[in-house]
């Protein structure tokens, strides 16, 4: 169910001193695609996600969202335009509970809320509870985030990105640090949450089982460059990818 191009990267370059984190990156992402980014450590996956979401500005190049340039916009503007993300290291409100974190997400993304109504009023707490339910976090709902295990934090981080019902969802290593039995469950939950809507999902992943199962298309990064861009099977059988990323060719 892919349609017109929603996200477009044209000639992105980014250097950190001598380190090349992006070298002439060109990608077109059609609406509704499930795109997986794989690559060696330090290849530039997170950098790509950071550039798309406005955290980093590319040295050169352009990023278009539905043909509109978003290259030097702030993360907030880009988020408001419907691009949401999760983080490699979860970004949460540590002293708050997951429930409160989700309330914050509702409050930050929703319509204007009154100064004189309780935060939980106006349907917000129902919405938060519903998400907690859907992501099976009820058991942890009212403990401070700082006390939660890594996997739950990861889940919450993703759940918060979903509150706004994004057009484009970028997930930076959603399953790293999540135990193997739970990985698929987590991905199933996420995918179910965006099911039936034309949501484009880009996810960075190191686990090839996840990649083959959930991606329509795979981008393989190495040293800031895209070395392969194709359907999962094709990419994973690419000799360069095998050498630098998956390590199956020796």
């Amino acid at each position, binding site marked *: 169910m892919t349609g017109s191009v929603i996200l477009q990267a044209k000639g992105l370059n980014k250097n950190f001193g001598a380190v090349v984190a992006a070298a002439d990156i060109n990608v077109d992402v059609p609406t509704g695609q499930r795109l997986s980014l794989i690559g060696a450590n330090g290849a530039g996956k997170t950098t790509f996600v950071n550039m798309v979401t406005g955290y980093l500005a590319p040295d050169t190049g352009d990023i278009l969202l539905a043909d509109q340039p978003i290259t030097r916009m702030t*993360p907030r503007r880009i*988020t408001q335009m419907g691009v949401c993300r999760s983080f490699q290291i979860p970004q*949460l409100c*540590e002293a708050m509970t997951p429930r409160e974190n989700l309330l914050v997400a509702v*409050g*930050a993304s929703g319509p204007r809320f009154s100064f004189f109504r*309780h935060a939980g*009023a106006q349907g917000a707490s129902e919405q938060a509870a519903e998400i907690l339910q859907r992501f099976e976090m009820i058991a942890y709902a009212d403990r401070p985030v700082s006390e939660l295990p890594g996997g739950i934090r990861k889940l919450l981080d993703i759940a918060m990105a979903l509150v706004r019902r994004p057009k484009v969802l970028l997930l930076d290593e959603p399953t790293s640090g999540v135990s193997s039995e739970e990985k698929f469950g987590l991905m199933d939950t996420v995918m179910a949450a965006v099911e039936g809507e034309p949501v484009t999902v880009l996810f960075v992943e190191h686990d090839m089982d996840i990649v083959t199962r959930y991606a329509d298309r795979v981008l393989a990064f190495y040293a800031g460059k895209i070395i392969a861009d194709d359907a999962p099977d094709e990419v994973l059988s690419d000799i360069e990818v095998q050498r630098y990323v998956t390590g199956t060719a020796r």
Partner: protein
Amino acid sequence: MTHRKASHILTAGLLGGIALFLVGLLLPNWLLFTVTKAAGYGLVALGIVVLMRGGLVSFGQGMVYCIGAYTSGLVASRLGVSDVFLLLAIGGGASTLVGLLVGPLIARYRGIFFAMLTVALSMVLYGILVKQNAIGGSDGFNVPEPTFLGWAPGVGASDLALYAVAVVVATAAATFCRFYFDSMPGLVAKAVRENELRVEYLGSSVFNITVRNFVIAAGFGGLGGTLNGLALGHVDPLFSFWTTSGEFVFIAILSGHVSVSAVFVSALILELVRSFSNRYFPETWQLLLGAFLLVVILFLPNGLGSLWEELRKRLGRRKPSVASDPGSLERRKEVAP
């Protein structure tokens, strides 16, 4: 999770205000005055609490305090405006205006840099005022006694009248804050303290929230300054000195940001501790005050307000609300070496 219902907050504010006024009828004059002054200080500190919930601490609230006091004081002494409510509006308004002007300039600063920039601004104001010989330079000037909606209370009654006004302003401000803290914008503001990046990535503007908090704090500062200028009958550039600002921060920390009423109690406690140690240990009162500070910070890391919440929990009448926050200033504590 419980809601403090809007009507509950309003009733609590109203009853609290009335109760305080009735208590005032019984207080000796010196205490009446001390409470009035504490209310003025508490208002400024409440502004800091608002900022603190957004992750920032201003060490320069003396600036807005001073602007409120000077503006209302000048209007009172030069233009002859004497009505206390008008003066409060003018003083609060002037500081709010300054908050609107300064807020956007400093909203992108964080942590100690925000604190020090506010110090710098307040000290520049101090430096300028010291030079203004036309309005008394470093000695400041006197502010005439206010009238109350046309009524000029004579000697004796004016303390009580001003106390009543202080109670009204303080409870109104506290009620407003309770509403704000419990509301969705308040919750998002609190998230700013925890993780700005996340808030931006959720689509809210940390900048706008910070400016909003700063403006609210400025308004409170102006009200506090006006109130104290009128109560003391005198304003001077020291209102904007960094030590004055330091006291406001101390009150805010002492109270913590769980409870809005704790701010005023803290202000009063500080005044009383200082006054009595000065009276009975004039040579070593700083030693005692310092020790008091340490003890409070050591044993009440989340401030006096946390005592309230604790009490409430003990009584079991209410569970902690959304706004309560065990982390508070104390982020994750690492193992001390």
